[in-house]
């Protein structure tokens, strides 16, 4: 075991896989010589060479397309898109090609591509470095969609994603790269070494795709969330003395509805929270599915907490961010509802 932040954990996952499987390659803008703008691929090119850790042109569509061709030709590419905000030139290659190749060829051809995508805000990134577009990808049939909330899960999920024969869009909440963040930007940053999930094995292990994690057991309200807001929800529940059961979804596709429904049937109350915008956000799917599965156990309407339906603003980042105040208010409202 070692202490790792999320950047080191992701680096370790790729390191492990590059060493274990000669078909694994890492590609993307600035990932090679430089080691990535967030340092996630630091040192990997030096260790595995320029043919395994490949710098690419600034062309997200080209990166995804080339990864698909490589995948069809027996490689297992891990492609980095530098920011989620820049993934859209590659959207057609993901939605129309990567996601559907297996289906349209009746299983004959497929491309086991993992697309790593730093996402989310709270880093003074404005509307071009803060987006959380996971719902757009969860809506596509044929890609798995993942977002870890801590270093241990990040490494285990990334290894599972790389080993998976289906394409995986792997969102990394970049506000969590260097430490857990409880939503209060005025507090000094704390490192992952203060958090139990900052303990990460050096070698190979998997966190299976499609399984949610109950990060805090509780009885009053279930909070269904993922990414940065897992930590914000924990802090909000504590600050408001709510005995919340907090579920980290981890994998949006496939979705572990069993774990979520079991919890909501127990508590009878639920809030759904994410940083992405609310309208047709992934929370809408969660809320609808929980209602279908748990209607007769619900004692209050499901509450949604999300980013406002505006682009992510630069100056009013913390007014936009669904922080402890909004989650706390939702928790109290749902708990109090008759």
């Amino acid at each position, binding site marked *: 075991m070692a202490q790792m932040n999320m950047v080191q954990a992701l680096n370790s996952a790729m390191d492990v896989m590059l060493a274990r499987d000669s078909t694994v390659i890492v590609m993307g803008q600035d990932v090679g010589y430089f080691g990535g703008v967030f340092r996630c691929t630091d040192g990997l090119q030096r260790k595995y060479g320029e*043919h395994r850790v490949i710098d690419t042109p600034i062309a997200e569509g*080209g990166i995804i*397309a080339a990864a698909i*061709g490589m995948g069809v*030709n027996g490689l297992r590419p891990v492609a980095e898109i530098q920011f989620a905000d820049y993934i859209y030139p590659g959207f057609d290659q993901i939605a129309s090609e990567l996601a559907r190749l297996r289906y349209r*060829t009746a299983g004959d051809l497929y491309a086991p591509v993992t697309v790593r995508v730093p996402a989310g805000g709270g880093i003074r990134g404005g509307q071009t470095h803060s987006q959380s577009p996971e719902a757009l990808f969860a809506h596509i049939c044929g890609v*798995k969609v993942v977002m870890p909330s801590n270093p241990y899960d990040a490494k285990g999920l990334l290894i599972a994603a790389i080993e998976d024969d289906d394409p995986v869009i792997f969102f990394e909440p970049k506000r969590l790269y260097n430490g857990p963040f409880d939503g209060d930007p005025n507090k000094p940053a704390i490192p992952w070494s203060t958090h139990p999930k900052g303990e990460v094995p050096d070698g190979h292990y998997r966190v299976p795709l499609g399984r949610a994690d109950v990060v805090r057991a509780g009885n009053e309200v279930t909070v269904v969330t993922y990414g940065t807001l897992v930590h914000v929800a924990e802090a909000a529940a504590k600050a408001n003395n709510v005995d919340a059961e907090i579920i980290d979804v981890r994998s949006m596709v496939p979705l572990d509805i069993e774990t979520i429904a079991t919890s909501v049937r127990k508590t009878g109350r639920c809030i759904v929270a994410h940083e992405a915008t609310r309208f047709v956000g992934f929370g809408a799917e969660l809320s609808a599915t929980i209602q279908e599965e748990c209607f007769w156990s619900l004692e209050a309407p499901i509450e949604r907490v999300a980013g406002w339906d505006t682009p992510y603003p630069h100056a009013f980042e913390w007014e936009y961010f669904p922080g402890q105040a909004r989650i706390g208010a939702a928790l109290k409202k749902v708990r109090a509802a008759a």
Partner: protein
Amino acid sequence: MAATSRLHIPHPPARPGQRADFSYLKLSPAGAVARPDPRARADQMTNVSTSLVRVLDDDGKAVGPWDPHLDAADLQVGLRHMLTTRIYDDRMQRAQRQGKISFYIKSTGEEAVSIAATMALRPGDMLFPSYRTQGLQIARGRNLVDLMCQCLSNSRDMCKGRQMPIFYHWKDGKIFSVSGNLTTQVPQAAGWAMAAAIKGEDHIAAAWTGEGSTAEADFHHAMTFAAVYRAPVLINVVNNQWAISTFQGFAGGEQQTFAARGPGYGLPGIRVDGNDFLAVYAVTQWAAERARNGAGATLIEHVTYRAGAHSTSDDPSRYRPKDEWKEFPLGDPVERLKHHLIVLGAWSDDRHRALEQELDTLVTESWKEAISYGTMTEGPSLHPDTLFEDVFREMPEHLRRQRDELRKIRG
């Protein structure tokens, strides 16, 4: 007069009712274009991107430095593949008109572009087709019944009923899946070729796309990746003059050839007579040799003509002169190769008629067999459960539930 900017709207030289006019096509005499060293630098051969590589002259003789010196037996195979494709296309078009299949796309007039190129490549090379390159399948020896079953979406359909007609693939024959999203396959081919180079194999990739589709960003991505990594990939632009109703000027062909885009990326661009079987073969062979020797990718513009409609849903009489194909200066690839074989003394009108009859019979027999595996309206058919398969390798819980829901509704 004050200076003002002007918006230029490209117009084709002729519309319905007007005389076909191909004076815009710059031609070179057969044998006139020099053949560069396949290992030379791209900037030392820019002339081949604006001239036109041709081997067959008007008398049906093979001339000049690009003559690939193929045996008559190989040429006869090429002719057979082209005729098979043409007769297959005609039969499937008829099947669509009779309501037996929902849609069809013919490749009439462009057969050499697929077939000569495929014959110049090796079986281990990966082909990334566009939707008008059924000749790739035929040149690689695909059973016509398999192609027909795909068009019928029947119980033996390679795509399990998931695709419109003509969206074939062939894993064992190393032919990628046709996509309706145009040009997506070209940067994928560059990626496939990069992987071959990473693995140290000598297989290469070849992709086909229309001149109209070069306007897609994917074309730029493909050219950039192919050039940057010197990927062993052949990028074939099939300039058949028409993208549904817009002529090649709408994709940027008015001021410059499509092949001339190659040198801008640092790649050789070769403009070839796409209706000249020998020239297409020779240029492909040249580019394949270059790619296999580590000198990287080549852009090839095949100048040809889309003799038929874009698809069975299209009516070209609304936007171009009816007789345009007859006026096309590069003729018909089948007739030209046939003429060449006759000039060589290796073919005759009688043998040609006999071959046509043989292939007619083959296509008719294949069709009979194909419909025995079902049609859109008559069984045997696929089980509806299959619609939930292959979204993922393992069927996840939510799809199992939806499958069960459908089963319940069907009773």
